[in-house]
């Protein structure tokens, strides 16, 4: 019983780190542009399809496949940004209408990207080479899959990297300024459309990395990867608190833990149901999200 509990918690953290990578990218876009990019996952899926194609054609190694996934996701992301987000970002008095237009546009491109993927590689399912072919690591009575350990390491590295980027670089200063007061950022001479584009590229690269690690762990690619990635990114972000990067990580880990434990307790058919129930309960009771709750519980009282 105790062994199971610990093992499930470990599994949850591992699953959560995959979600964390997805959620960081999604949250970066939402937090900076204040726009929900529904094509976030489908762009990742297209990157994974490009890698699958390279794998089928050339049997390339894992580094090449990871690079193709990331670059593919970035290219697809740039396409989405140019079409759905750049035209509306240029106006300073954008408002709700532009946000809705962007979101609906990104939904249309989601369908389009899925079509492209299925026209390119028409079978429903393609196998994908694993990152690591050996047995899982054994830690006493517990086991750890190497692929998920890689995700955890990448998620931690991404957190620290993003934190440093935002806190210490000129680009980070521009991002923080835009998030804080967009018109003032324009007046300070920050090229806001360009920063938006770079944020999109960065988010897509993170998503591409997450996508590669996930398909390499699942050892398969289907067009469903797109919707799955967007959903996990959104849910993790909403659990953690809208637009907050630490919140995204906390929400992703919570989602992983909820899924792992509910799967073990109730069976896999209940896994997503429980996750959505927790999300609804949280949104109803604590709409600010888990990160705000944690901060209130541990930190000094808010100013």
């Amino acid at each position, binding site marked *: 019983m105790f062994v199971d509990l610990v093992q499930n918690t470990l599994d949850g953290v591992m699953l959560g780190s995959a979600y964390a990578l997805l959620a960081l990218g999604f949250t970066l876009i939402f937090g900076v542009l204040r726009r929900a990019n529904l094509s976030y996952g489908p762009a990742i899926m297209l990157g994974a399809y490009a890698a699958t194609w390279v794998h089928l054609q050339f049997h390339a190694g894992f580094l090449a496949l990871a690079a193709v996934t990331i670059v593919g996701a970035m290219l697809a992301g740039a396409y989405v940004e140019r079409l759905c987000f750049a035209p509306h970002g240029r106006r300073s008095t954008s408002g709700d209408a532009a946000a809705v237009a962007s979101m609906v546009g990104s939904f249309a491109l989601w369908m389009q990207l899925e079509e492209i993927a299925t026209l390119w590689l028409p079978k429903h399912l393609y196998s994908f080479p694993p990152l690591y072919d050996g047995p899982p690591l054994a830690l006493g009575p517990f086991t750890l899959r190497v692929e998920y350990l890689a995700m955890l390491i990448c998620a931690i590295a991404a957190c620290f990297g993003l934190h440093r980027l935002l806190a210490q670089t000129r680009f980070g*200063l521009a991002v923080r*300024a835009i998030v804080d007061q967009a018109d003032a950022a*324009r*007046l300070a001479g920050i090229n*806001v459309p360009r920063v938006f584009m770079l944020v999109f590229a960065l988010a897509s690269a993170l998503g591409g990395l997450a996508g590669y690690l996930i398909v390499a762990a699942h050892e398969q690619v289907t067009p469903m990867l797109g919707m799955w990635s967007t959903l996990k990114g959104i849910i993790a972000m909403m659990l953690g608190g809208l637009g907050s990067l630490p919140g995204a990580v906390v929400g992703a880990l919570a989602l992983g833990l909820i899924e792992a434990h509910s799967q073990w307790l109730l069976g896999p058919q209940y896994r997503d149901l429980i996750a959505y129930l927790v999300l609804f309960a949280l949104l109803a009771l604590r709409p600010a999200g888990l990160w705000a709750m944690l901060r209130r519980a541990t930190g000094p009282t808010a100013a």
Partner: protein
Amino acid sequence: MSAPVLEIADVVTAYGKIEALKGVTLAVAEGSITCLLGPNGAGKTTLMMTTSGILKPRRGSIRFGGEEIAGRAPHDIVARGIALVPENRLVFPHMTVADNLAAGAYQRDDKTGIAEDVERMYGRFPRLKERATQEAGTLSGGEQQMLAVARALMSRPKLLLMDEPSLGLAPLIVEEIFRIIAELNRDGTTIFLVEQNAHMALKVAHHFYLIEQGRVTFSGSPGALAEDEVIRRAYLGSARQ
């Protein structure tokens, strides 16, 4: 009047179908303090936003140093040497005072020059130095106004636009702001300011424009402004001093 550094000609800016500026023409002389007066809704802020590139004019010309800048992006206009201290200050509330200043110098890459300028700002505004690591949102209104001015100066502008710098501030703070405006001008910065407080503006400005319902209706020296019966009644109170 020396050569104009900013020439605005027949500028029309509209929000949808409503024209806030209906063909504004004015000029700001190099080295001067030029003041734009006008009632609420006359188009003062719209003109500032249009000049700094946040709003695009529907037609007309804005020339800065002889070059056309109408419709250019704000970051391009900052790069050419115009900085706006916006209405209601618009500091970055969740960033530290130091980061606010750093953001003002965003387009510069001379690290030592930036560091020197930060020290210069702290010298001019000692309160900002005391609060360098504090979030700007925690500052008082007057301190935020100082910060907004300092942030704009960090881009080393040739022309400083100021949109109602005295708005909502206590009289003592207003006096300090105007003392700073005069100082900055003495150090060589051309200043184009929007102000409701005509009494204070009269003490520092070299030239006045009045804008009403999107059109310039008066242009003249402080003396001419004080002589104008209608303006005096509307902006300086009726009693002649």
